[in-house]
């Protein structure tokens, strides 16, 4: 019995924190895989409506984004409360849509230009007036493939 050392009394062993970075790395890998770099910072409120006859946008084809909505709170003082268009990172007017499309086309390879899809990300509360103007400008620029980007869900959720 003299060979056995007496156990220390009182004092708990320190918690082993070796597993903590493992947990954090798991979260990190999830975010690295499931998300994409944010293409533009939105200066407008952009809650999309829902629809159920949706198709996934084919990422292999080039896509350009046009955002429409009310300016978000910190920009409301300077830019008002009417729905506005945002192209790339800044507010824009309806006349700037055609130069924007030409710019996007200039950055593409020749054979991909007819596959350019314009994704319209419009806030659900905007009015059709400005959307109609943008569609007319797109027709003039011959950018005819458009996609009304929406979430997936039942359409009755759109009425509020």
């Amino acid at each position, binding site marked *: 019995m003299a060979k056995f050392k007496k156990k220390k009394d009182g004092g708990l062993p320190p918690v*082993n*924190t*070796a597993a*903590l*970075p493992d947990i*954090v*790395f798991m*979260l*990190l890998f999830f*975010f*690295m895989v*499931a*998300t*994409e*770099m*944010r293409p533009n910072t939105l200066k407008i409120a952009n809650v*999309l*409506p829902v*629809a*159920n*006859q*949706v*198709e*996934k*946008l*084919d*990422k292999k084809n080039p*896509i350009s984004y046009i955002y429409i909505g009310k300016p978000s709170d910190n920009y409301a003082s300077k830019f008002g409360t009417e729905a506005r268009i945002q192209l790339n990172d800044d507010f824009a007017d309806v006349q700037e849509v055609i130069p924007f499309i030409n710019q996007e086309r200039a950055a593409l390879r020749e054979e991909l230009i007819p596959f350019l*899809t314009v*994704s319209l990300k*419009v*806030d*659900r*509360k*905007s*009015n*059709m*007036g400005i*959307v*109609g103007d943008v*569609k007319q400008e*797109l*027709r*003039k620029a*011959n*950018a*005819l*493939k*458009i*996609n*009304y*980007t*929406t*979430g*997936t869900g039942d*359409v*009755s959720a*759109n*009425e*509020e």
Partner: protein
Amino acid sequence: MAKREAPEVNAGSMADIAFLLLIFFLVTTTIPKDSGISRKLPPIDPNETTPPIIRQKNIFTVLINGRNQLMVEDELMEIKDLRAAAVEFLDNGGDGTCTFCQGKKDPESSDNPDIAVISLKNDRETSYATYISVQNELVAAYNELRNRRALEIGPQYGFPNMDFISMQARLSDVRWSGNTTKLKEVIQQIQLEIPQKLSEVSQ
């Protein structure tokens, strides 16, 4: 002599590095929302030829006013009834030329889905959410008819039990190993028989 135990490496700093990277990714990325209703706009015709004369019965008028009210063929209607009304219109087969229509054959409604036109008009004050709901219901009506037709003619080409939407999904799926030429043929035939003639009148 007793060997000294190697001291444990402090893992606290590894967690700090990991948290830094995690916060960076949380802030700069979004979960992408890239689904939506695809449409093709009509090209602008510089020399406006007069539109082809279509008999009034082959046109299904849908109007949305500034207060988000729906008027279909000159009657008020709720959005939830729009899909059934559109299917009834397209599927009518008024003059008997349509071999697959199962509708009522009403002489006042459309003759054949390939000449039937749905015309949509909205106001500048219509809300976008209502517009999307209406577009959704109209596209749903076309898809319903196309799905039914795909189940009818699919077996002849070797694709039993596949509706139109699954046909399109399989065509764009790189992992599907069936016969893509035949699948394209079926899809094109259905698209010719039931074309999406959805015309939007400018405000």
